[in-house]
């Protein structure tokens, strides 16, 4: 059956786009948590540079990288919605400092003496130091040393696995440059950004009301003013996290997915189209290499020595597995776009994004829809026989001249709900 096509007048008019947007809002760092992490990384920078620290006087800069830098945060853990955010600490150290020394210096600077602020909250990793906060967030702080006379913030990055010193590496990287490139290329579609930011505020308020939380949420947070490409990226990262949650293999890095996103950003009319475009593009890029019998290699467009694929895929087999994953995702996304009902949409989205956010989003959607109908506040569009989905921030600007009409109040009636004998 062909779907009736209606002219859309809001980027989130279609229920599918609204549900996808709500899932992205649900899984990202909330506006207040984002502000909290901003305060935390500044506090960490001051702490690393404190009197008595091993790195006193050596901290040149601390800044967000990765998802926080481009506004594409997603919960990294499925079971408790834990978020991890990434920071770079740019240090002034001698050229000959070894990877082990750089990472140990940072680790012990943050750890400090027994009883100090982060003593039992810090973990030494191969390329960064992780600080675990009590509220389900953790920060990965990567030490880097700026390379003089190179483009802005191009730096040395250090790899050291204490058990395997022979694998020590000094790499060249420019995450700041990539983030700036990403933001420039995925420039904001103002209409979508405005509607998404309004919806994010509205959704966060709905969630707070459910928790009887008294925190005030501003109507629009600048961090929620984002393009379709960034929201699609968040959804793809979430899907990847769900997929790899039970697998022991390394997952494709977020920076690689971000690079693909930037390459084909915002060439669509709706969020669901954008998501499908991005997945198909990524799949086709991977397929090109795979059909040539090669592992994909992707580099930072602003730093040719900064390879995004140095640790993944580990083998052609790993690459093939992900290729199949992307194919399956594309099939599911096409199905979502082909006129399935809410029940089937929920089943597909649970599979893609996990039960927790999907269940909440669908329950919320159904509840708000019912509230509108019960209170006589629902609207419809005769062209296509559509219900106008309730998002209060959008209604105000969206109805006039659009063919949307108010539905008179009614009371559904009918047989008693008796169990069949």
């Amino acid at each position, binding site marked *: 059956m062909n779907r009736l096509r209606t002219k859309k007048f809001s980027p989130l008019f279609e229920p*599918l786009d609204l549900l996808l947007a709500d899932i992205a809002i649900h899984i990202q760092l909330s506006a207040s948590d984002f502000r909290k992490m901003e305060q935390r990384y500044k506090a960490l920078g001051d702490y690393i540079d404190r009197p008595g620290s091993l790195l006193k006087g050596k901290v040149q800069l601390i800044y967000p990288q990765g998802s926080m830098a481009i506004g594409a945060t997603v919960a990294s853990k499925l079971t408790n919605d834990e978020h991890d955010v990434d920071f770079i600490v740019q240090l002034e150290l001698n050229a000959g400092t070894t990877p082990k020394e750089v990472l140990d210096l940072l680790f012990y600077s943050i750890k400090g003496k027994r009883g100090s602020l982060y003593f039992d909250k810090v973990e030494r990793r191969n390329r960064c130091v992780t600080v675990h906060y009590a509220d389900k967030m953790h920060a990965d702080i990567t030490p880097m040393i700026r390379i003089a006379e190179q483009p802005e913030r191009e730096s040395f990055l250090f790899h050291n696995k204490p058990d395997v010193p022979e694998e020590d590496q000094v790499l060249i990287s420019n995450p700041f440059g990539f983030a700036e490139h990403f933001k420039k290329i995925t420039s904001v579609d103002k209409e979508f950004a405005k509607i998404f930011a309004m919806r994010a505020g509205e959704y966060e308020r709905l969630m707070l009301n459910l928790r009887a939380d008294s925190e005030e949420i501003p109507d629009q947070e600048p961090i929620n003013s984002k393009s379709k490409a960034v929201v699609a990226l968040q959804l793809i990262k979430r899907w990847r996290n769900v997929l790899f949650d039970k697998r022991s293999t390394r997952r494709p890095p977020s920076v690689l997915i971000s690079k693909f996103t930037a390459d084909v950003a915002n060439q669509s009319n709706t969020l669901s189209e954008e998501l499908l475009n991005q997945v198909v593009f990524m799949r086709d890029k991977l397929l090109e290499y795979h059909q040539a019998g090669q592992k994909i290699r992707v580099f930072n467009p602003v730093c040719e020595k900064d390879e995004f694929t140095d640790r993944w895929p580990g083998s052609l087999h790993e690459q093939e597995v992900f290729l199949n994953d992307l194919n399956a995702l594309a099939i599911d996304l096409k199905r979502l776009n082909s006129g399935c009902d809410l029940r089937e949409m929920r089943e597909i989205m649970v599979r893609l994004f996990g039960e927790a956010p999907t269940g909440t989003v669908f*329950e919320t959607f159904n509840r708000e*829809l019912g509230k509108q*109908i019960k209170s006589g506040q629902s609207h419809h569009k005769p062209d296509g026989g559509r219900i106008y989905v309730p998002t209060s921030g959008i209604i105000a600007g969206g109805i006039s001249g659009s063919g949307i009409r108010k539905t*008179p109040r009614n009371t559904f009636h009918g*047989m008693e*709900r008796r169990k069949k004998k």
Partner: protein
Amino acid sequence: MLPIKEQIALMSKRWPQFEVSWPTKWFVSWKGILCPLNKEYIVQVVYCLGANLGPVEISPKFPQVRVLSPLLEVRPENPDEPIPHHYQNLGDPNHPVLCLYDPRGKEWQPGDRIAETILPWAINWLACYEGWRATGRWTGGGTH
């Protein structure tokens, strides 16, 4: 009371995708597509003003809406729970009549316009039906 001719004219103007059939002075039927959220439904609206045809008297019936396709379904998680807010159609059990208004509350009267009431209510019903199938909760309210 609004004559059938006027109901047809209003439906044609507001819902051109609905095809009229069997129009007489006292009976009309429409068939068309509604797509409340993402999925399309073929629905039929039947309205009878009633008529005295000599030996046969046809009693009036308020507008009735049936979903012709796809068939309405119960939730597999709880197959004993009937679909909310419908009237059984003994002549055609696969196509129950949607219960869109409370007749006791006189929410629909023969002077009302089908185009402005019955069809929008059918859209709401279908949206609530989809929400119920997806979550187990009918949130659009109603009475029995």
